[in-house]
């Protein structure tokens, strides 16, 4: 080629670096190969860049809107509307007065007919603001008569996951039999809601604390002491997630399939069946709304979210690939069917249709965040079928979706994850930036095996027969590394 000698040396070094080979000739074919490979890489990078920008715009924009709204918000009209529901015998209510803040309810005396004070109503977050549910404060309006007995309890605002708190009305009905002389022990005096322990504990403590404080300070009564709260700090919620994430990362870095399956199964049992706590769009929306549970009540929330973000930033899709309980269920369904009937082939889906369909999960992620920001409540983002599966509670549509995803998982490897999971879409954008990735070595012979064995179609041979890995889709299963005849694929920075 007609170039100055110095430029030729520099260009040759660059080509050797790109193709990882010591034997390269500077000619037109190699330059064309470099150009086409870089063009395909550039397209993949550009697509991920645009998706990242849209997500960051919605996420931080929503956070800003929520902050502005919190400064301006006035919930008093809703409180006033609900007063007659907590004290139905009252005919007139005062404005919110006094310390602690409360409403006074007046109505006719049963015998004389004169207007007398019948009871008080108060908002729990005015009196016990530091008691938080799973996703932030739970605002309740409680009515009490003059003897300190609860007349009714209503929830005015909450951000708890809907499928876990479907039974809240029947839970709240139990409070109508309690008063200041009662203890409020969950599990003894009150039946909680299965899988919603933190929500029930928060409601119970908030109602008890605010009722007894109101009775003491405004009604001059002597309530019993507060019921004992959870005594022991749940250290298992710190230690077990650390162990599980450690197992997952070790399995990935040592290309150990058994360790990966062990972390998938233990993750299914611990996160799915025992704790029913998974990374979900509700948590992403709650972070955008700046609603966090208290660490002492819910350390698992912080460990799960923190470790997921950390491992995704460093290594890629660790949670999705090696820990997500619903992904485990899908993989089990997919593999069990093939174990029994080995002739079932993977559907021969066209590559372009497959890639276009993957935008769906980004669209659902954006929609969930936008709707949550508009409503100021992350409950709207509760769309994942695993919430139905592990909480064993959901609406009809949610159960139908779960059934459909299980059927789809029999034929398509991780159907929900690839095409619909908003969490996967979010984590994929973060994984794209991780320093440790599966990278191609210098011994690649363009045999195409990695493209064919990749279960999520994250590897594609480009026009120059060079494998290109789409990192947001790569679940670090290690199949490409295992099957590569030249051992040229490795995880490295």
């Amino acid at each position, binding site marked *: 080629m007609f170039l100055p000698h110095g430029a030729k040396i520099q260009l040759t070094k660059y080509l050797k670096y790109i193709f990882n080979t010591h034997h390269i000739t500077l000619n037109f074919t190699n330059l064309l190969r470099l150009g086409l490979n870089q063009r395909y890489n550039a397209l993949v990078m550009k697509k991920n860049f645009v998706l990242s920008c849209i997500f960051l715009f919605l996420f931080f924009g929503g956070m800003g809107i929520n902050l502005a709204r919190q400064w301006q918000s006035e919930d008093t009209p809703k409180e006033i509307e*609900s007063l007659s*529901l907590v004290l*139905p015998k009252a005919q007139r209510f005062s404005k919110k007065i006094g310390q602690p803040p409360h409403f006074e309810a007046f109505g006719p005396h049963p015998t004389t007919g004169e207007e007398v004070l019948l009871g008080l109503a108060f908002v729990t977050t005015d009196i016990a603001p530091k008691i938080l549910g799973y996703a932030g404060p739970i605002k309740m309006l409680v009515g009490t008569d003059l003897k300190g007995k609860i*007349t*009714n309890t*209503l*929830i005015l605002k909450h951000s708890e996951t*809907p499928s876990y708190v479907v039974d*809240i*009305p029947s839970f*709240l*009905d139990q409070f*109508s039999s309690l008063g200041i002389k009662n203890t409020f022990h969950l599990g003894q005096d009150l039946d909680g809601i299965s899988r919603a322990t933190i929500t029930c504990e928060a409601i119970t403590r908030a109602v008890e604390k605010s009722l007894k404080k109101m009775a003491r300070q405004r009604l001059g009564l002597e309530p019993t002491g507060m019921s004992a709260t959870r005594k022991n700090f749940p250290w298992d919620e710190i230690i077990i997630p650390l162990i599980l994430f450690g197992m997952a990362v070790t399995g990935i870095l040592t290309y150990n399939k058994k360790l990966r399956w062990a972390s998938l199964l233990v993750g299914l049992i611990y996160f799915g069946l025992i704790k029913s706590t998974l990374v979900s769009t509700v948590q992403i929306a709650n972070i955008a709304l700046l609603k966090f549970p208290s660490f002492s009540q819910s350390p698992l929330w912080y460990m799960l979210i923190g470790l997921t973000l950390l491992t995704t930033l460093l290594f890629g899709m660790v949670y999705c690939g090696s820990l997500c309980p619903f992904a485990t269920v899908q993989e089990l369904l997919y593999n069990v069917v093939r174990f029994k009937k080995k002739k079932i082939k993977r*559907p*021969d*889906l*066209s590559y372009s*249709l497959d890639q276009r*369909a993957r935008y*769906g999960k980004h669209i*659902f992620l954006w*929609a*969930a965040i936008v*709707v949550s920001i508009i*409503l100021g*409540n992350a*409950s*709207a*983002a*509760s*769309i994942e079928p695993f919430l139905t599966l592990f909480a064993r509670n959901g*609406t009809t*549509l*949610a159960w*139908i*979706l779960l059934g*459909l*995803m299980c059927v*789809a998982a029999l034929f*398509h490897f991780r*159907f929900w994850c690839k*095409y*619909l999971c908003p969490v996967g879409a979010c984590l994929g954008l973060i994984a794209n930036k991780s320093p440790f990735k599966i990278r191609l070595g210098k011994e690649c012979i363009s045999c195409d095996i990695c493209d064919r064995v990749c279960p999520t179609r994250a590897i594609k041979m480009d026009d120059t027969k060079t494998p290109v890995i789409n990192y947001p889709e790569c679940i670090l299963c290690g199949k490409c590394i295992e099957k590569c005849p030249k051992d040229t694929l490795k995880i490295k920075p």
Partner: protein
Amino acid sequence: MAQYMKKENKYFILMLIIAAALLVGIVAENIVSVILPKTVRLNIDVEKVKQKLSQAGIVTREAKHWKKVR
């Protein structure tokens, strides 16, 4: 062009469309549950009301549908 589409592609698109429709429905249900929470309801002691009415000499009966009482 649709007639040349492979069977797998057609089933895949159908499954995606159904899943997407279900997801939209679930989001709509969630929005309704936030805007109209189930906890807003009256707690009326029906038995107590019936007892007071019968003490006053009024016969109570279950109303199955609106009907002009003659």
